[in-house]
């Protein structure tokens, strides 16, 4: 489908044509949020293709990028619940304002289940319900106020976000909520999510790897990731290469250095777009694909 990227406030528009690179530039001169729309008819959902462009003050983007990079996955996954029993116990006993507040935010059925929970091991089902509810809290309204977080050691990242002007919105706000929740329950919730889960998140969303690399062996623009770990590929030039950490890292940062035979040098570099830790996560994720095989 052909789309067209339009930012009316910048008087700028460019079609997005499959199979071709188009260039466009703009110079944003005012801080704020501006509508961004699709203007090339692309099907039933055409009129829903809109979002906003956020222009940060000088330095603001770097801050945002850092936070966004630290926060590999904005929402909780079951693996992030490092001590489910601890969390439930804390919620059951109450006391600190933040505990009471969080318990009230959970769905009534979840609260019933927690009060019915006898202690000991947490069932898969309960764990899932709790994670879902936590994510509902994350994506909801800002959770911070002073009274609620009295006695909680608020982390540096959260404080930066709280001080931001304008107040964080969208993914930023979800990120802030997550920082705050982790600050409130540091032992029960993981600050750094599970590496393979994060890798999967980068593969699917943040890095968008999946638009060119399949995980099921299907043919695509790039080699499939299925069973890629430890595999030996013939290269278009030079000796064959066995896939290991250094090669993956090189392929992400300098994609055209070594091209697998039969593919075109079309991958863009991710230098500056993925942090080292995120590349670690991708590598961890790729390893799991090898094990599946």
């Amino acid at each position, binding site marked *: *489908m*052909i789309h*067209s990227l*339009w930012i*009316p*406030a910048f*008087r*700028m*528009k*460019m*079609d997005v*044509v*499959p*199979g*071709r*690179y*188009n*260039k466009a530039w703009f110079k944003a001169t005012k801080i704020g949020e501006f*509508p961004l*729309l*699709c*203007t*090339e*008819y*692309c*099907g*039933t*959902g*055409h*009129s*829903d293709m*809109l979002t906003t462009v956020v222009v940060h003050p000088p330095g603001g983007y770097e801050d945002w990028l850092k936070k966004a990079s630290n926060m590999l996955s904005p929402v909780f996954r079951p693996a992030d619940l490092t001590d489910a029993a601890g969390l439930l116990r804390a919620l059951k006993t109450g006391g600190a304002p933040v505990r009471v507040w969080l318990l009230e935010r959970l769905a009534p059925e979840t609260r019933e289940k927690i009060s019915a929970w006898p202690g000991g091991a947490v069932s898969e089902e309960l764990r899932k319900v709790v994670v879902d509810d936590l994510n509902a809290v994350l994506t909801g309204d800002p959770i911070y106020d002073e009274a609620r977080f009295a006695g909680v050691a608020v982390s540096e990242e959260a404080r930066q976000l709280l001080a931001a002007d304008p107040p964080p919105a969208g993914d930023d706000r979800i990120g802030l909520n997550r920082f705050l929740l982790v600050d409130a329950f540091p032992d029960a919730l993981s600050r750094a999510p599970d590496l393979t889960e994060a890798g999967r998140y980068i593969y699917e969303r943040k890095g968008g790897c999946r638009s060119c690399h399949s995980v099921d062996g299907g043919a695509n623009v790039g080699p499939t990731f299925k069973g890629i770990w430890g595999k030996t590929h013939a290269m278009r030039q030079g000796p064959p290469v066995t896939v290991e950490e250094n090669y993956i890292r090189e392929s992400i940062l300098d994609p055209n250095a070594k091209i697998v035979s039969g593919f075109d040098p079309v991958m863009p570099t991710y230098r500056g777009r993925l942090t080292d830790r995120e590349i670690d996560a991708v590598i961890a994720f790729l390893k799991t694909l090898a094990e599946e095989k």
Partner: protein
Amino acid sequence: MSTVEAAVPGAEPRSYLQEGRGIRSWIFTLDHKRIGVLYLVSVMASFLLGGLFALLVRTELLTPQRTIMDAQTYNQMFTLHGAVMIFLFIIPGIPAVIGNFVLPLMLGAKDVAFPRLNLASWWLYVVGSLFALASILIGAVDTGWTFYTPYSTETSTAVVPMTMGAFILGFSSVFTGLNFIVTIHKLRPAGMGWFRMPLLLWALYATAIIQVLATPVLGITLILLIVERVVGVGIFDPALGGDPVLYQHFFWFYSHPAVYIMILPAMGVVSEVISVFSRKHIFGYSFIAGSSIAIAFLSFLVWGHHMFTSGQSPLANTIFSALTFSVAIPSAVKVFNWLATMFRGNIVLKTPMLWILGFIFLFGIGGLTGLFLGALATVIHVHDTYFVVSHFHYTMFGGPVMALMGALFFWWPKFFGRMYVEFWGKVSAVVVFIGFNVTFFPQFILGLRGMPRRYYNYPPEFESLHVLSTLGGYFLSIGFLIAFFTLVHAIFRGKKAAANPFGAATMEWQTSSPPPLHNFVEAPHVGDPYDLAGLVYDEASDGFRPAAKEGSS
């Protein structure tokens, strides 16, 4: 035949409407006038259908979210509105209806060069329309009337019947154009040199050249699209190494000239009507004639201005932008000559003149906003927005549709030999003019403020202007209903029309209204088509007749 024609001199000859009765005498007729009437009926039916789709689209846009239909239906509605209006209504509108009826009469000829081909054109039109209708019934297309790839090769709606229909309609258009070129070249009467032809014929000639040269390219483009969709050869499919932008080049190589297929005949109509109702010789005849040819020529060089944001090189954009500006020159030549014709004329504000004045005003706005869209600095912002929607409605609706209505009111007495009620004709012209501006002027503002075209949901801040536009649309359609009833009423209840009710000097007014089967009982007088001085008003017949020729000097 000769016996009939030799009948009592002075008596009314049998009109073409009386030659033969029954449906077969119509749908297999070789008479250009009857074919013109056949086109009139089918084209007007398409206009009603396209108008219905337009009203549904406008009604949906009353509210920012869902009003009466879902997104898919909405997309189908605007696609059908565009496709029906363009392929079934505007392109055949003036050339096939007015051109078929008037062109041989203006030449003093008995028919067009190839009457059978002419009938075949109409049949192709019918078959093409049936394909288009079939597409509506079995899964109306939702690609937009431009059928852009790769969407058109991937959507599940009935693209093939619609494009097949457009392909067949294209051939109908080609054959009409071919017929007109040969007719003008070979059937001009002795004494009518190229520069004594009525300007409508110049316009139809220029139109026919575009039809013959551009339409085959649309034909092959649509064939390739069908082949791509059915067989998957990968012409326009990037996944198979193809290039979707190539489709846009092919498509606009036809479809930009096609907008001149729509506007040039309209300009021809204006040149005729404006002189008659200003009671003055047309001003700058040779410039108006030459500008038609110049527009036809330039129309082939500007297609790239539809792809300014497709990633075309800046050099190509610059060149296409400059060429686009150059189209403004011959267009402005025409407008200034029309104004100069009216200047110090004795302007008669009858119904056809009101429609044509509406044309000049609306086309003026349409043309000037076209310059915004030709200028690279502004077009990037307004491309694919309501500004463009409004611009092409001002040119394509304010142009050809106003002119077609003017032409119908002008030649209606010649078509059917009956006069309409002048009052209601004028009311319809005024209502349409007001309704049109209320509908489309807000869309310029919408576009500039950031409202993209083909949007089902839209940001709430645009709601008030959308509501205004929709209300204007309802008002506009009331105007057309009045015009429609006025014209139909004239056929059945109208007062009998004189041979030359408006006092025009072109040859079609020298025969009776309606004309006999072979057009002229006695060979018409070939003279200056804009010399109105030789006509005097005749009270008895409520029409004009040649001043009695005294042995002048």
